[in-house]
């Protein structure tokens, strides 16, 4: 008992998790610790409905901060276009073979936004088929992309990041860079109409060059359970090391929000309206990309 008594005084930072663990295993009928205190270990004790683990995420934050600040030197513009509260949908272009754009977009909003809002981004299905990757992404806040999940998030007034290009976006070849692919089935527009969530178009520049894909091997994709098997300048030549992203200079640009409240929620079935809004979002993203590319002098230095 002595060390347990001494500890809280001696330590400036109390490491609470240790003490309850000991007592719980010794005293059989110990009353349960209140759910807010971590009982056994600090890792993933409390997760939210979608499996986001704040404790785990806090440990990963320095890594993403390093990527954001030093590695990709992300320049963030137009953050004022992201509303300070309420539901909202960030619609961005998707690129980079290994998609870092989800976590970077989230880091950008978390660091630059005055409200320090948290972003939940929707990840492709194949991520969740994969060992380690799926559970890692879930813990840091990714959610499987489907209508039900996105609707639930928006109804809880969350900021949701969507990449409507999906795997076509990250799986495009280097020569197709910065050309927006087809927007799935425009499900994101129907969702925005249904939930009356404004759409903020987002352009991410720099991610395309992190792992420039030269070739897709379709024959190898299936056995690995992935949508494409990438061949880049360094992968699979250098093995897994070849998947390290190039230190390109990134820009994340938030465009003017497109409000949905002037349309009735029931108009989600109106295909012409849905297509028109999708086209408007697409034009907004493409023109932001094109403008930023004209301005850019160097891939690495910006």
């Amino acid at each position, binding site marked *: 008992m002595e060390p347990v008594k001494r500890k809280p005084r001696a330590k400036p930072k109390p490491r609470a998790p240790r003490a309850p663990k000991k007592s719980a*295993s010794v005293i*059989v*009928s110990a009353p*349960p610790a209140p*759910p807010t205190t971590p*009982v*056994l*270990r600090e890792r*993933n*004790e409390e*997760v939210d*409905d*979608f*499996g986001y*683990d704040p404790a785990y995420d806090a440990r990963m934050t320095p890594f993403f901060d390093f990527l954001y600040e030093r590695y990709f030197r992300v320049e963030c513009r137009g953050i004022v276009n992201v509303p300070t509260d309420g539901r909202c949908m960030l619609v961005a272009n998707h690129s980079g073979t290994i998609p870092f754009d989800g976590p970077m977009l989230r880091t950008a909003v978390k660091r630059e936004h005055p409200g320090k809002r948290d972003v939940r981004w929707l990840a492709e*299905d194949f991520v*969740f*088929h*994969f*060992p*380690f*990757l*799926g*559970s890692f992404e*879930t*813990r840091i806040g990714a*959610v*499987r992309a*489907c*209508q*039900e*999940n996105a609707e*639930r998030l928006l109804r809880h007034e969350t900021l949701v990041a969507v990449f409507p290009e999906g795997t076509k976006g990250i799986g495009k070849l280097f020569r197709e860079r910065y050309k927006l692919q087809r927007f799935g089935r425009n499900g994101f527009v129907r969702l925005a109409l249904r939930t009356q969530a404004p759409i903020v178009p987002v352009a991410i520049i720099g991610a395309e060059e992190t792992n420039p894909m030269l070739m897709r091997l379709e024959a190898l994709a299936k056995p690995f359970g992935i949508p494409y098997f990438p061949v880049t300048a360094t992968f699979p030549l250098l093995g897994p090391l070849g998947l390290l992203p190039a230190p390109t200079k990134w820009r994340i640009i938030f465009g003017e929000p497109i409000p949905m409240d002037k349309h009735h929620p029931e108009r989600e079935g109106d295909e012409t309206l849905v297509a028109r809004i999708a086209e408007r979002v697409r034009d907004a993203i493409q023109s932001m990309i094109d403008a930023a590319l004209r301005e850019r002098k160097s891939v690495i230095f910006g």
Partner: protein
Amino acid sequence: MAVLKPKRKDPNGKLEPTARDPAALQEARVVVAVTGASSFLGQNLIASFEEDPAIDRVVAIDIKQPASGKKTRFYEVDLTQTAAEARLAEIFAAERVGTLVHLAFQASPSHATAYAHELESVGTMHVLVGARHGRLRKVVMASSTLLYGAHPSNPNFLGEHQPLRATKRESFFTNKIEAEAELARFVERSPETVVTVLRTAPILGPTVSSFLTKFLSQRVIMTMMGFDPLVQFIHELDAIAAFKLAVDRDAPGTFNICADGVLPISTAIRLAGRISLPVPHPIAEPLGTALWMAQLTPAPSTFLPYLRFLCVADGARAKDVMGFRPAFTTREALLDFARAERLREVKLLSEVY
């Protein structure tokens, strides 16, 4: 005058209890029949009926006599026999049964798959034929959220409208899916009967026993390397309360009965005080089959997807329509189970069932 019962607590008063229905008052007797009466849910439900003054008599149907009080009358009926249809119709008519709670399902996967099929799939057919002849007012049936199946393409919260996609290779699931299909046909043919299906999440608690409690009481638990799906439970008291609520109120339809909150399975195993042994999933499949054949695991390898992928249900409909409020969260249900388990290990708590 048992009918003029004291006012019962009605959390939001959306639906009137049956016993106050004019039709029910006219009959003047509320008789509830329970098939699978000796099961965990059956025994506990009968105990709560015994205490409820609004219920006049309980008809317990099983092959084994449940522990019960003086309101309960036991009938030994083997649902796997074809004669069960006529027998049940007779019992329902003679006892003037109004409500049937159909709980004759196995809580754990069994090696005797032929019997399980006869009991669950064919047995449900027999029960429902009997119910149609007996002109029951209400049928409540137990089902499971596991029937949705664990798939990487599942939304994080499965609604009641989602298809039941549990693997066809496991009779534990297919029998129950067939039973639900049987009930759907019954709904079509007898529209005047109120039919409620309660799909409960895996039940945990201090006294319940199933493949899940056996799984969580293994010292070392096999998990799938690199996968940490979210899991969801329901406390045994909440599960019993949900069935009681479905008997007391008329809420036709299918409802997911699940606790609030989810836990990653790794956390669940740690909270239960167990050690997880991650195994690569291609190896786990043959290993699981071998262990099941040697009767060393509580569940066959067809349950392994639940260790890899999501199968979490959305309980919103039960809250909104039926007024069901679970008292325990997933975490609390698990901790309650783990505490009782610890007492059992040091022989301070003996097995009740």
